[in-house]
Structures are given as structure tokens and as C-alpha cells.
């Protein structure tokens, strides 16, 4: 796509500068991640320059902390379920907005998009107050509930954006070719929005992985890892922050890279695969 544009319409200098700019952007994004990585192996409890010596002490501290493991399990469990549920809900809402016009749609959309605008500290307390009154507080389920509330809008936004790129005749064409609404959903809408669905799945999982303020309130004793990190940051300043951060980072990266490789591998030989599908 990018190389089909004729070469006389491009300027090497501009292209080069832009590419350097991309790299600078990544430098900004990765600087704190890299620093955290480095300091997670630093012996000093309080990070400062010059570095102390190499040490795995903070990893050992985390690894030997059963609550860190419990937190990780909670985080993963919550994150995966939140990702799936909020992507499902967000997809439904995005499709509703794309396809239907009905009375009160503005309100519906407001409900669908509002939650991320509520300050988390307040939302956390309000959630806790409400959930405890209906006996749903203090466990992973309450974190899932709360996270889905704030994640579904992200999923909806991402998927809606993709739907707006779809030729509106496509769905009609499928119906016209004998696909019921359900079949058109399965064979047209979902394939078309698949990249956005995967994107939404990842982003919502990531948002959940990283959310600590609401989770602090509603998780009770079943804390997720970010809540623990918040505790480390607010309560003691420990390089365990970096150790946990790096560990989670490396783990999720491995997963994402695997997914990426799988997806790339798939698309490279998309046709043969498509032939096999169902």
C-alpha cells in the first residue's frame, strides 16, 4: 500500500525525518519501561545514580511472597474475563449504534461511553458501597464487574470505529444472498470487525491489568497485582515495583509476541487456511 504511491511524490528527507520521529516517540514510551527493567536488578532499595550492584533480591522477595502470586493469579483471571465480557458487551453496543436508530439512543450511547469519565477514586467508593449492599463486594467477581463497567466503553469505541469503515451495503448484500441476520453477523460483521475485536480484547485486558484505584476499593482482601504495586508505591517504595513490573511485562510480552507471530503466520498463508475453515 505504502509503496504504490509514486516515488516522485515522496521526499527521502521528509520520510527519514518522520521515521526518526517515530523512533523518538518509542524512546519516550520505552524509557520508563527500560529504566524500571534496569532498576529491578539494582541492589539499592531506593533507586539512584550511580547504580548499586546487580541483584535478584527484589525478584526473590516477590517470588517468595505468596500474596504476589495470588495477586498475579487474580489479575490474570480478572483480566481475561474482563477482556472477554467487555469486548462482548462493547461489540453489541457498537453494532447497535451502527445498525439501529431508536428513541433514546443518545442516552444509550451515553451509558455506553460514560464510565471512563468518572474519577476512579470516587467510582471505587461508589462501587464498593453499592456492591457491598448487594453482597458482591470484596472478591474477584466485584473487580470483574467494576472493570467491565470501565472497559466496555473502550471496546465499544474501537469496534465502532472499525464498523464505520464498512460499506453499509455489505450487510444488506449478505441478507440479500440469503444470510439471516445471525448468519450475516457471523459471516460478514464479525469477519470484518475481527481486527478490532482482537484489538479490543487486548486493550481491555490491558486496562484491567493496570487498574488499581477501583480495584483497591472493591477487591477487598482479594487484591490484584496493580493494587499491590500501588501499595508498594504508596506504602514503602520498594524496587519490588520494578521486579513485578518487569515480570508482568516480560510475561505479557511473550504472550503478545506469540499471538503476533501466530497471526502473522496465518495471514501470510491466509488463503490455504481460509480454504480449510468450516
Amino acid at each position, binding site marked *: 500500500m505504502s509503496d504504490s504511491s509514486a516515488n516522485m511524490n515522496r521526499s527521502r528527507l521528509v520520510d527519514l525525518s518522520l521515521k526518526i520521529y517515530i523512533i523518538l516517540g518509542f524512546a519516550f514510551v520505552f524509557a520508563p519501561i527500560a529504566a524500571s527493567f534496569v532498576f529491578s536488578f539494582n541492589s539499592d532499595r531506593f533507586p539512584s545514580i550511580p547504580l548499586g550492584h546487580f541483584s535478584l533480591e527484589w525478584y526473590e522477595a516477590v517470588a517468595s511472597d505468596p500474596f504476589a502470586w495470588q495477586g498475579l493469579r487474580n489479575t490474570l483471571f480478572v483480566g481475561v474475563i474482563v477482556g472477554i465480557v467487555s469486548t462482548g458487551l462493547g461489540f453489541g453496543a457498537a453494532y447497535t449504534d451502527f445498525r439501529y436508530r431508536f428513541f433514546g439512543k443518545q442516552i444509550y450511547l451515553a451509558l455506553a461511553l460514560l464510565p471512563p469519565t468518572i474519577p476512579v477514586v470516587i467510582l471505587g467508593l461508589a462501587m464498593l458501597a453499592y456492591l457491598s449492599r448487594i453482597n458482591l463486594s470484596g472478591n474477584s467477581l466485584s473487580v470483574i464487574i467494576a472493570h467491565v463497567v470501565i472497559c466496555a466503553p473502550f471496546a465499544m469505541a474501537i469496534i465502532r470505529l472499525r464498523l464505520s469503515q464498512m460499506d453499509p451495503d455489505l450487510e*444488506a448484500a*449478505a441478507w*440479500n*444472498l440469503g444470510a*439471516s441476520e445471525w448468519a450475516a453477523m457471523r*459471516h460478514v460483521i464479525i469477519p470484518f470487525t475481527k481486527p478490532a475485536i482482537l484489538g479490543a480484547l487486548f486493550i481491555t485486558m490491558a486496562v484491567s491489568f493496570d487498574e488499581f484505584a477501583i480495584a483497591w476499593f472493591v477487591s477487598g482482601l482479594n487484591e490484584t497485582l496493580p493494587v499491590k504495586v500501588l501499595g508498594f508505591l504508596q506504602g514503602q517504595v520498594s524496587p519490588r515495583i520494578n521486579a513485578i513490573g518487569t515480570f508482568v511485562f516480560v510475561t505479557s510480552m511473550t504472550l503478545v509476541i506469540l499471538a503476533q507471530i501466530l497471526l502473522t503466520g496465518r495471514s501470510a498463508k491466509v488463503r490455504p487456511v481460509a480454504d480449510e475453515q468450516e
Partner: protein
Amino acid sequence: MKNNTLVSFEGVVKRFGDFLAVQRMDFEIAKGEFLAIMGSSGCGKTTTLRMLAGLEAPSEGVIRLSGKPINDLPTWSRDTPMVWQSLALFPFLNVIENVEFALKMRGIGKTERRRRAEQWLDRMQITEFASRNISQLSGGQRQRVALARSLVVEPEILLLDEPLSALDAALKVRMQSVLKNLQRETGITFVYVTHSQSEAFSMADRVVIMSRGKIEQIGTPQEIYRTPRTRFVAGFLGSSNMFTGKVTGIDGGVVTLDTPSGALRLGATDLPGPVAVGQTATLTVLDTKTHLATRAPAGNVNALPVRMIGEEFIGATATIYLEASDGHEIRVQKSHEDLANLPLQIGQELVAHWPLEDGHLVMEA
């Protein structure tokens, strides 16, 4: 309703908000008929087709398919496949998967599906692209995929929205005969929206001419061509000379019309309705039925002195452009041979003439 009626529109109206896209439409389509719909851009052709396909709901009126009202029948239960103007091919499926789509929706097994799809790829001469992505095809190639995708189910009725408009002339002709043959062989009813008069006239059994959401005329190509019922139709076909004036006399089977270009007459046998002296009306005569001579011929004909202002040649025919004494433009279309012994130079004074029975009356200014 006749016995062999497949589709009927009864008082169908379609509004988009305040905008009246289709006005009270009443017509029928017979089983196995090839119906073409023509009309100027934005006149409601696509909208009509979409209502039939169940993609728009009529605002008023009833549409029947095989006698049953289908207003409330969803598209997917209708079996009225359509070839889209925008094509609406599925970008995430390759060519053959697109063609297989409708079969898959009908639950037809993989092998059978593939077999039938390949057959149609072949028929549409796109076999070599079977596993290409849609984005890798040229406009014309895409259109053929769209055709194959709808035809593959061999439906009872097929709706086509300018299916050939992106094809080149040769391919268009070839595809026309493919379509026409297919239609004859299978007896599928075709409803065919097109901008091309030659397409409509050479393929269709009947043609609908629309203007601003209204049906102006329905009839066989011959009827419409020979006797345009409204000024719009005559003007739209672009094949008639038109003279507007006041009716000054009706007697002895002859109607006389006083026009700025001169007094003209026509036979009163084929009038569109009651005609009274003093009414304004338009006389139309086909440019192919309008003859040229160096002087007014003898006999019961209309004859107008004209001056030649231009000529144009397309293939076997030439079109001569002339103007009457009042500056009104008149065209004459003839084969080269017919014109061979006329002094055709710009500025030449000639006489345009036609027999009374070749003129038709339209009660409009």
C-alpha cells in the same frame, strides 16, 4: 392481477424523511420477464429495486411476490438476489469465497458449493482470479464477481443495479448476451436497472421509464421507442424531434397543431386521450422517421423548411443536425446510403418531412 404475474407493486410510495423518492407506483412484472428500469440519475431506480429486495420498506402500498404481500418479509427470506451498484463484495473473502457465499448460507456442502462456484467463475471468465483478494481486481473484474455471486443460486428473480456499467464495450456486449441467454434458458425474471438505452432496449421484454420517482411509461422497447407517452420519455430517449404548439383543429381523422416552426398535422387514430381545440400539446416524431429532401415531397406529409447546422457519424449511421425557421433544433438519423444523394453542407437549405402517421401526440407542453 394476471396469472403469470410474479411481482406486483400496488400504490407503493417511498419517503426518506420529507423527500418523496418514489411516488405511487403501480405495475406488475411477469414470470420470466426481462424488465429494464431506466430514468435519469436520482429518479428512484435503485430505491425501487431495494424495496423489491426487501432492503427498504415501502412507506405506503403493497409489494407482492407470487401474489403474497412481502412488505414484512425480511430480505433473507425473499430470494431476491441483487447485484449492487457499489458491488458490495466482501473484502475479507477471496473471489471464490464471495461466489460461494450464498450457497453456504443455503447450507450447501463444501464440495458442491465449490463446484457450482467454479462453474460460475468460468461462465464469468474470472476463473484465474478465484483465489485473489477483491482489492486486487480491476473494476470490471469486480463487477463480474458480483454477478457470479448473485447468479450462483440460480434464483427465480434477479435484481441488477447497473451491473455492466464498469465493463468495456466488447465485454459488455458479451456479458449482455450471457445475461440474456441465461435469462432465456433459466426463465429467471430479471429486473434490470440501467442507464444504457441500448442495453435496456436490446435485452428487455419491457422497459420502465422513471422520472423523479414517478413511472412515466411502461412498455415494450418498440412501444416506448415509437410512441413515447410523455415529453419526458421522448426527451429522455433523445431519439425524437419534438414540436410543441396549440391544437387548432381536429377533423377528418387529422389533428392540426400550430407550432412556432410551422403548422403540423398528425393522424388522430393513436391519440393518448381526448383532445380538444385550444389545448397545448407536443408532437413527437422519431429522428429515424424524419426524412430529408431538397424540396417538399408530394403527398400527405408534414414538411418543414430547415437549414443544416452539423453532422455526426457513428458506425453505419449519420446524424444530421438542422434548425427550423424559428431556430428549433431538428435531428435526422439515417444510414450513409440514405443520405448519399443529398447536398449535405453546413448552411444548406433542406426540407424535413414525415408521413402523418409517424407523428405522435403528447398532451404536455
